[in-house]
């Protein structure tokens, strides 16, 4: 554990050093959980259905591929926290530690098959450094939907990642249609499709407490940061102020 903390710390120092080298802090976009590509420092990580590819984007106008690793198939999303990459796929949660040269070093592949033998639900994953939060969702109504499965399987899974090489499932919760998610402090924000968005107090991940339910929006993905919750749905965007978690205020919406 101490070693991984050191690694994370040194990684941060590496990034901050590279950011300050020209005296200007980079303006870097923060991608939501359904993203298939993200930047970490001067590297771009992209997943396609089969691979994770690393590009050096020191010069964004000239990305250079530095590494490609095959992960199988149905690879969907990628997320970063503290020098660790989390890759969501239909079948497994992949965890990588970013090496000194930016190349992802595989740490673990945790199969979901334990929980559902022949299902391959759609899922994104996020992390807060201590836990990985995965949503798995299927649709049983529309056979043309890529998440279509004959049997419903809709859950939020939480893994303890203290040991990146051996994540352990510590909690799971039934949801209706779980999709994108975000975490800020102790609060976990989970899009639940047509069922809106749910906010949980995740101080104790083994005992999530639902503290707020925003309904009336078909939600897809969310980012909660600096007391501003941004929720994207099928055809609209809504924003909320959660500075007082007990009195969440809708700030505005954009629906065209």
């Amino acid at each position, binding site marked *: 554990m101490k070693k991984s903390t050191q690694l994370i710390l040194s990684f941060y120092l590496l990034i901050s050093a590279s950011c300050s080298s020209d005296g200007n802090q*980079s*303006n*870097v*976009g*923060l*991608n*939501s*959980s*359904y*993203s*298939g*590509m*993200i*930047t970490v420092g001067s590297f*771009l990580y*992209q997943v*396609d*259905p*089969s*691979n994770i*590819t690393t*590009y050096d*984007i020191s010069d*964004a*106008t*000239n*990305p250079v*591929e530095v590494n*490609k690793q095959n992960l199988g198939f149905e690879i969907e999303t990628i997320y970063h926290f503290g020098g660790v990459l989390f890759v969501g796929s239909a079948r497994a949660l992949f965890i990588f530690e970013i090496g000194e040269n930016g190349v992802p070093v595989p740490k673990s592949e945790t199969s979901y098959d334990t929980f559902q033998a022949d299902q391959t639900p759609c899922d994104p994953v996020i992390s807060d450094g201590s836990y990985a939060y995965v949503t798995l969702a299927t649709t049983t109504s529309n056979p043309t939907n890529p998440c279509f499965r004959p049997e419903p399987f809709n859950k939020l899974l939480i893994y303890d990642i203290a040991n990146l090489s051996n994540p352990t499932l510590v909690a799971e919760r039934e949801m209706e249609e779980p999709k*994108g998610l975000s975490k800020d402090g102790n609060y976990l924000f989970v899009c639940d499709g047509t069922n809106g968005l749910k906010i949980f107090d995740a101080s104790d991940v083994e005992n999530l407490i639902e503290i707020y339910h925003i309904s009336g929006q078909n939600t*897809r*993905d969310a*980012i909660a*940061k600096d007391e*501003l919750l*941004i929720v*994207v*749905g*099928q*055809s*609209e*965007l809504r*924003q909320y*102020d959660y500075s007082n978690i007990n009195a969440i205020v809708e*700030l*505005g919406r*954009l*629906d*065209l």
Partner: protein
Amino acid sequence: MKFVLFALMSLLFVQCEDEPIEDMIVSGLSPRYTTLMLGQNVSVEAMEFDELSNFIVFGDYLLLVERSKGIHIVNNVDPANPINIVFIEMPGTIGAVAIDDNMIISLANYLITVDISDFTDATIVNILEIENSNQGEGLYPLDYNGYFECVDPDRGIVYEWVREDLINPKCKTVQ
């Protein structure tokens, strides 16, 4: 890679024998093309959202990815009054990241860098073709068995295949 594709194509394709006397109309797949050129301006007027897939918080802006179409740019200086200002039109868009003055967009087998220092005048500044990517539809439709309209590389990059009636199609995949 190109050689392998070419070799694969020659295995997959069945050429027409003689010119048919009557037109043969069959259901098949037709490619949709997009053209990408350095210096190309890809900003168009703000448009309605359809099916947003994911998004990016980028300073005071929100970049909303609409898969296969492009990216909506929303000015979010005042979250109570977000303003949809412009659309970055990139048919075939899969995802994007933003860093400083640039957005890097994945599209079929390409990474496209767009200068977004002025969102209303976003310009393509780099086009990188990715080898061995599993995202492109390339020269023939993947996981498909049947007639399709042959790809004409001069018309641009194929980003999707659409089923429609084809007249005397000259290409066919045989699996």
